[in-house]
């Protein structure tokens, strides 16, 4: 069925591809062939997977367990995380164009980030913050040149996630443009091993987790719609996929962020694409990742920012029981039942 469906998928526009190949100096915007193929492949593959899983819906394995359910046990318990996060440090090992400040000056050398998050009410309301710092490799690799602070509320209802976020990007070593926005984002999640019986039969030891959605930058102060700092972003479309190759210890991932321009004739057409592909290897609380990012305009020629980076993440979490032991939080009565 998948094959039949894909026969009807929109074919790659050969005329544009040929035009780009024949006329590379054209002012018309041409996505590189390899990038186009990757993007089309991701989109078409996900759609085909969806259709395959839809066709096999009757075979799904979700079965109720009449004698083993624990009604009234939906609450988080004391062993679950109260708050957690990670520290990230990364080196941009190859960076021809990725800027080190919001005004597009310099070139990033190092990135450091602190991520903190806590569930305020189960999975429905979570607060998180990211504090991102960049250094400029043209001024040495140590001195920080940009600070991006993100503060957000997020939550999940069934397969849908929502987000309300504020981000402010500012230079640290000199005065200059500050970029800030506030946005909302809604995404839908797909988990292959849970949602596709075909996947579970074919890849019992691997998993594909993906989400995609759209957002609205309802407040925008200098948050641009292209990498060359032109336009002003209005909407964003996001898609992300994690392919668990081996027990969540080896993960291949891809991420796409499209922005539209509120000053453009058509405010819903994307004007910028930021994409990332990477591979992560995890061991205990650590993760080593190699990834490549490219931010490019879609509707015209212009600056393309890209780099290749290696990064380390160290995660940590504090359980509710640890907080209770410190006397900072009281647990419900059943938490104090004697255990042995």
């Amino acid at each position: 069925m998948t094959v039949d469906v894909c026969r009807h998928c929109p074919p790659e526009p050969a005329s544009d591809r040929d035009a780009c190949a024949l006329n590379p100096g054209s002012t018309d915007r041409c996505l590189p062939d390899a990038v186009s193929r990757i993007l089309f492949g991701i989109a078409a593959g996900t759609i085909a997977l969806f259709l395959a899983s839809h066709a096999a819906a009757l075979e799904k394995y979700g079965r109720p367990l009449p004698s083993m359910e624990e009604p009234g046990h939906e609450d988080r318990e004391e062993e679950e995380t109260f708050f957690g996060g990670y520290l990230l440090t990364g080196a941009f090992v190859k960076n021809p164009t990725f800027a080190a400040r919001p005004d597009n000056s310099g070139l990033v050398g190092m990135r450091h980030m602190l991520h903190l998050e806590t569930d305020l009410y189960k999975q429905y309301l979570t607060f998180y913050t990211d504090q991102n710092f960049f250094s400029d490799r043209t001024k040495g690799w140590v001195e920080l040149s940009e600070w991006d602070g993100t503060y957000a509320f997020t939550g999940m209802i069934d397969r849908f996630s929502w987000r309300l976020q504020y981000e402010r990007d500012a230079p640290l070593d000199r005065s200059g443009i500050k970029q800030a926005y506030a946005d909302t984002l809604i995404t839908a999640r797909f988990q292959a091993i849970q949602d596709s019986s075909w996947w579970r039969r074919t890849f019992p030891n691997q998993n594909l987790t993906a989400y995609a959605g759209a957002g609205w930058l309802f407040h925008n102060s200098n948050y641009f719609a292209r990498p060359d700092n032109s336009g002003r972003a209005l909407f964003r479309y996001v898609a992300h996929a994690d392919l668990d190759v081996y027990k969540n210890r080896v993960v291949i991932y891809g991420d796409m962020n499209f922005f539209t321009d509120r000053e453009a004739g058509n405010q819903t057409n994307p004007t910028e694409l930021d994409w990332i592909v990477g591979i992560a290897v995890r061991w205990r609380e650590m993760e080593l990742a190699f990834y490549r990012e490219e931010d490019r305009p879609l509707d015209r020629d212009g600056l393309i920012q890209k780099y290749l980076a290696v990064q380390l993440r160290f995660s940590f979490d504090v359980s509710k029981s640890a907080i209770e032991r410190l006397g900072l939080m009281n647990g419900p009565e059943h938490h104090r039942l004697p255990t042995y």
Partner: protein
Amino acid sequence: MTRQSRVLGLMIRLLFACLAVQACRATPPATEGYVRQMALRGMSTSEVLACAGPPTRQFAEGDAILMRYYREAPMLEESTVGSKGSHAGVHHGCWATLVVRADRVESVRYRFVPSDVDASNDCEDIFANCSQ
């Protein structure tokens, strides 16, 4: 805007539509039938303690002893990193409850937190060293 970009935009919209429909078809994940879950049945208490360690909690209920284990998915699995920030995923974990009678595991129950996220790999990881 090239034809290529327009087709890409169409594909994006179609992708979002597919995911939205998929999300609406939410089916609760299965909580039984996993390899290590089934392999635990019939094991003695000492065998379980030897391969999985002491339980997070343990208590008696009638003539049965309930051994409860918990494992939460690591933060690195739940939160993804983008170019200038992150995307917080769903905190999730799995409780495994072993019902022990006459020193033998009679049944094994998995419970995911939250219940609509498949966290079976977390429970299965608890018993990674258990086999009969």
